[in-house]
């Protein structure tokens, strides 16, 4: 009854690092492959098995990502950081970015967006912040 663990484990996305990404991708496998088909060739070099953003450099995805950013992220990350770090200068891998946006940062004010945003939207916002180093 008073067990708080339910919240963090029963959801589709467990809160534990790469495992979460694994589960997440399993849940979204269908859309992920669709997204990959629709996306431009991914030229980014990546370690074998690493999850990468298929939308990097895609103009439409970047525009959509800006809308996602303004609808969900701007209140904290602002134009160049503030309440949260400056995402336009982030050097996180795509996989780590995805993990953080899906699961949030435990013990910090970064919320989990795993139930709110689709995988596409997260890749779009990632493509957007990586498309420029200033707002």
């Amino acid at each position, binding site marked *: 009854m008073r067990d708080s663990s339910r919240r963090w484990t029963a959801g589709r996305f467990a809160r534990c690092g790469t495992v979460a990404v694994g589960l997440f991708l399993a849940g979204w496998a269908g859309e992920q492959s669709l997204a990959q088909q629709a996306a431009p060739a991914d030229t980014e070099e990546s370690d074998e098995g690493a999850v990468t953003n298929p939308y990097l450099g895609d103009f439409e995805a970047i525009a959509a990502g800006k809308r996602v950013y*303004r609808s969900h992220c*701007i*209140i904290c990350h602002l134009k160049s950081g*503030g*309440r949260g770090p400056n995402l336009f200068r982030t050097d996180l891998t795509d996989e780590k970015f995805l993990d953080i946006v899906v699961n*949030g940062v435990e013990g910090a*004010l970064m*919320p989990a*967006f795993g139930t709110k945003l689709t995988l596409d939207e997260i890749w779009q916002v990632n493509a957007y912040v990586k498309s420029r180093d200033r707002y």
Partner: protein
Amino acid sequence: MRVSNLYAFGTTFTAVAALWASVAGADPVTSDDLLSAAGNTSEWLMYGRTYDNQRYSPLDKINTGNVGDMKPVWAFSTGGKLGGLEATPLIADGVLYFSADYARVFAVDARTGTMVWYYEPQYDDGMEAELCCGPVNRGVAIKDDKVYVETLDARLVALNRADGTVAWEKTIDDWKAGYTATGAPLVIGDQVVVGIAGAEYGVRGYIRSYDAESGAENWTTYAIPGPGEPGNDSWPGDTWKTGGASTWQTGTYDAETNTLYWGTGNPGPWNSDMRTGDNKWSCSVIAVDATTGKFKWGYQYTPNDAWDYDGNNAPILADVTVDGKSVKAALQTNRNGFLYTLDRTSGGFVNAVPTIDGINWTTGLDPKTGRPTVNEKTRALSGGDPVKPVIPGLEGGTNWFPASYDPNLGYMFINTNHWAMQLDAWPKEDVVYKPGDLYMGVDFQMYRLDKDIGYTKAFDVAKQEFVWSTPSPLPMFAGILSTGGGLIFTGDELGNVLAMNSKTGEVLWEFQTGSGINASPITYELDGTQYVAILSGLGGDPGFYFQGPKGGMLWVFSVDGKKAKGEGWNPTPIEGALPQLD
């Protein structure tokens, strides 16, 4: 780590409930007790201590002469995710009741620091993404045998005071549409009154009354008037439907006239040119009949707000003399940088003075009405150039943290902040309302102006001037308590609990709690000793501007630092982890 590892609830639950019976009789807190709270110096029964919200206690056993000897008596960890503490604890019948982050509620034996019970609300995944400003909660309310708390996902939960079990719960609104709750409920008579948050998500603010016993809904009064109601025409088209004016703080009550006063938040979106007009009653205080919720009057501090200057901080009611005239006043210190003296019987403007230097969003207030003349250079137009600097920045001035009023000195004590911002409004076509998404339309950046940001100040209400000012390098975000001992208590983001001489502002005592303080202190008397209690734990908005050690502790102080020897303790063995050796 799971919160519940801290306290193994299931198995020890009955034992804990039994402990309750031994530490205190569950003496009900009646409506009359709440009305006569001013004379009850041994307890602290509601958010502002008394309905007038003065946060003044006549207790004087701790005073300017001996406060230097104050020592911690005990401390209690709220554990969990350390999301920041903003609550005002209550104490009734020897038990402290307070909320922590995520609206978790604790009942703790005030004599020993031993937990009596704990309540943790459960939330759906994704709820945190609807919170503008962290998973904070500002406190609980008590009546009879119940304790009330508003959960982050906008539920009102009534807990049984004896054991923390849920008596009933009601959904106030749909968090998925951006309606959340962070305030402490207010009990008046046999009702519990609540407000909601979410002006950055296109909500329409309201206050709502529930029956304290059954949870049945009594009335709802919207801060933004509906079609046909006076003031609705201050919103173009349908903008009133998503116009914000949230009600995320606790109101003030005047029993003499049965009037409830409630502060309202900023209008949304932040693009003021998308809602030309005054946008009533955003950035205002509204007065309603406490029995029916019927609107009496409103006073708008910031018409057609373009700067996020919420007017939520509830007024303090005091009978004062200004300019030789006696005034039944409502005193409010605002995010827009001004401290207002209003006539609470009519909503008439008496005076306003700036609490910080360099305010530039207005070139001045009308001396008769207080209506500001806007400095249009500080209004960001949709799709236009960014404007900078705007003083104060959107955090205020005085944000939500409660002020205090010492009726003997006639001083109001406030915390206020001196900083600036830039605003950059998007083109109108980019600002689209979608339930649950941000509906802001403006980017902002806060700026530091000086070495010091925060100030604690004393305001002589009769003379309408500040008497002293004590600075702090970081913003001040804690509430204030004033006492008959000639002291005020507050806390800073450096982690210090501070006791100041209320006449001079001199810091007479300080104690480092280890984490930033953004909560409000209380005082009470138990077994002949006066205590001061305050929560410490960096979070909320201050946590957005600087990093520091997180924390979550309730600290209790007295002059002799002596604690009663208790029967109970807080650690409980983990089942199966440490069996008795045969």
